[in-house]
Structures are given as structure tokens and as C-alpha cells.
């Protein structure tokens, strides 16, 4: 009887192995916390292997980037002049309203070392870590808006969970209406915002910023612009599509917001 069983097992070992490993994979999938599943040593090895290559590729990009930056500097200088004027006007108006600015943001610049190995872009590794004061859940931004948050920190590198990760959520506010909702990635550079009240007035082109309702993202960080609004009669809420302005696959530099200091 036992021998017969052994023979059956031996005959079907490939089926049994497959079945066992599939079950084990499912257990891993459903028990692992996507934020806490990375072993620091493997992440350090990846960083160690890829950082010299990343440095070389950064050097190659520097000249091209320099030309683009020079052009942008000119544009930004002109814009700056205009903004300075607005700033003076803003200060005067705030004083008039007795409004006190109570917060400012501390930014740490970081370079992208690696974009992960999966077929889709879900995360990246940056060259700053706990030594630079980075901690878990710090928001990560670029001049084009929010792109993710820190999900894991090592001493000299950190993993950024990108906005393109299907598990990523962010509370957002539409301007000028002030309506709020929860944003998640959909496809390409489009995100869907759900939980938006049906009576909110939202138009294509409206700015979308962080709502500040969570502890992770401070309010007012730019996220994207409204590209379409779905107002289905059969649904109690609106679904708003938001266009992210940053091209995630070509990011080289990012900023990590390490603190929002109260004045």
C-alpha cells in the first residue's frame, strides 16, 4: 500500500510539485504586506550593483539635461518675475485677511538608482536613506507633482512606491471647487479619482492637489489636471480622470519631503 503510494507520488511528482508551489505562492501573495516584504540586504545589493551604471547613465544625460535646463531657466526667470509680483500682492492680501502661514516644507533632493525589475513600473530606488533623514511614508515629488511615497528605508537608499502602483492611494482635492476624492492609478498617465460627491462642480483642466486629509501628504501638493469627468446616472458618485504630468519612466531626480515644519 505504502509502496503503491510512493509509486503514485513518484509518477506524478511534477504535478504535485506544481500544486504545492502554487499553493505556497498564493500563501505568499495573500500573507505578504507589499510595503514590508523586502529584505534590506537584497535591496542594498541591488543598490550596490546598479549605482555605478546609474551614475554613468546620469553623466550621459547631463549635457542634454543642461541644455534643456538652460532653456527652462529663461522661462522660469520670466515666470519668477511675475510670481514675485503675485507674492507681494499675496502677502498684502493675507495680512488683510489676518491669515498666518503656518507651515513650510523641507525637501531632500535624490537621484534615481534603479526602476525595479518588474514588467510594469511600480517602484524605484533612490540614493537617499535614513542617514539623510528619510523615513517611511515620506512623500516623493518632482516639479511636475507628486509621484509616490517612501515605502522602505535603508541607510543609504530608499524604495519609492510610485503612483503607478495599483496599491497606491492618495487623497486629493479639486481646485477651484474644493471637492475631494481618492486617487488611484488607472493606465498610461491617467489616474481615476473616486468617492467624489455627485453635486461637485468639476471641469476638465481643473487642478488636482493633495487634500491633506491623511497624515502622509501635506495639503496643496500638485498631483495633476482633470482630463475627463464621468457622471453616470446609475452611480451615486462621480469618477474623475486625472492626467499626471510627470513621465514616470524617465525620472532622474526627485525630491523627498522629509518634514512639514510648523512655524
Amino acid at each position, binding site marked *: 500500500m505504502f509502496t503503491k503510494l510512493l509509486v503514485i507520488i513518484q509518477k506524478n*511528482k*511534477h504535478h504535485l510539485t506544481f500544486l504545492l*508551489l502554487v499553493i505556497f*505562492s498564493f500563501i505568499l*501573495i495573500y500573507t505578504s504586506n507589499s510595503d514590508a516584504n523586502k529584505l534590506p540586504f537584497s535591496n542594498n545589493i541591488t543598490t550596490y550593483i546598479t549605482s555605478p551604471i546609474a551614475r554613468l547613465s546620469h553623466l550621459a544625460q547631463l549635457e542634454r539635461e543642461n541644455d534643456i535646463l538652460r532653456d527652462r531657466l529663461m522661462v522660469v526667470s520670466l515666470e519668477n518675475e511675475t510670481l514675485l509680483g503675485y507674492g507681494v500682492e499675496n502677502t498684502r492680501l493675507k495680512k488683510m485677511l489676518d491669515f498666518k502661514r503656518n507651515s513650510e516644507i523641507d525637501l531632500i533632493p535624490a537621484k534615481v538608482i534603479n*526602476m525595479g525589475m518588474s514588467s510594469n*513600473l511600480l517602484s524605484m530606488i533612490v540614493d537617499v536613506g535614513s542617514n539623510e533623514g528619510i523615513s517611511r511614508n515620506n512623500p516623493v515629488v518632482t516639479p511636475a507633482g507628486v509621484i509616490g511615497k517612501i515605502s522602505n528605508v535603508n541607510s543609504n537608499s530608499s524604495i519609492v512606491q510610485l503612483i503607478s502602483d495599483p496599491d497606491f492611494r492618495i487623497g486629493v482635492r479639486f481646485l477651484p471647487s474644493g471637492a475631494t476624492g481618492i486617487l488611484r492609478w488607472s493606465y498610461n498617465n491617467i489616474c481615476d479619482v473616486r468617492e467624489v460627491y455627485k453635486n461637485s462642480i468639476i471641469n476638465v483642466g481643473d487642478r488636482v492637489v493633495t487634500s491633506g486629509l491623511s497624515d502622509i501628504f501635506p495639503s496643496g501638493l500638485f498631483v495633476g489636471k482633470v482630463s475627463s469627468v464621468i457622471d453616470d446616472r446609475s452611480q451615486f458618485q462621480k469618477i474623475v480622470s486625472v492626467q499626471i504630468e510627470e513621465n514616470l519612466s524617465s525620472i532622474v531626480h526627485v525630491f523627498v519631503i522629509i518634514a512639514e515644519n510648523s512655524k
Partner: protein
Amino acid sequence: MIRKYIYILIICFLMQIFLADIFSISGVRPDFLILFILYFAVNFGSFKGTLAGFGTGIIVNLFDSGMTFGLLPLIYSIVGYTGGFLKTKHYKMIPFYFNFSCFSIIIGSFFVYSYFNYNYLFYNDIRIFLLTWLKTTLYTISLLAIVQFIVPLRKT
């Protein structure tokens, strides 16, 4: 023989780390390792293919930074298991059906990958889900076609 495949695995792994970004098209990257598992399984059968797939998946998951842990072992195990059934078949099967089977294995495994990664799209907007799946699959399928042209699976 197995040593040759270990070297190829290391090369594929390094290519996945260094070259996947360079070859990425609008955020979609080729998966060199899935092709390795397929080649390995076709040569060594389902048992070794499944084990190699699972092992490779675990290693990549440990080194990768953003994927659900366990998803790659599952997908690579499926490729290893199903690919293994083609082990002795490539002498008997019509080349078209043999190649079609290889492509189907990759397409099917990417469907599982996309389902786990984008299952909210699967239930909310099937059209975008299918587009995302096809976009991710087509790149690796094209790569398989090129690799098949250079090193045909039937002759490995």
C-alpha cells in the same frame, strides 16, 4: 548542461537589472527571465521547470522593489510547469503548433500577472485591462520571437 543554464540565468538576471530600463517603452519592460524559464522547462521538463521557475521568482522578488511578494514565483512556476510538457514534443509537433504553444504559455502567464496587478481594472474597465495586458505581453512576446529566430527552442 545544467551549469550552462546557471550561467544563462545569471546573464538574464543581470540583463533584467541593467537593460530592462534601457529597453523600456512607456513604462513597459521586457521580461528576460520568463524566456529563460521557458527555455529551461522545454529542455528539462515540468518537474525541474517548476522548481527553477519558483526559485527564480523568489530570487527576483527578493531583489525587486515593488512587486507583490509571491506573484513572480507563481507566474514562473506556471511557465516552468506548462513549458515542461513541450519537452519531448518538439520532435513530434508541427513547428507552428509548437511555437504557438510557447507563445500561448507566455500570453497566459502575463494574463495571470496582469490579473493580480490590475484586478480592479479587470472588474471596472475590462477594455483598459486588456490593453494593459496586451501591452505588457506583446513586448516579451516580440522578444521571444527574436530569441526564437536566433536560438530556436526546438534546437536547444
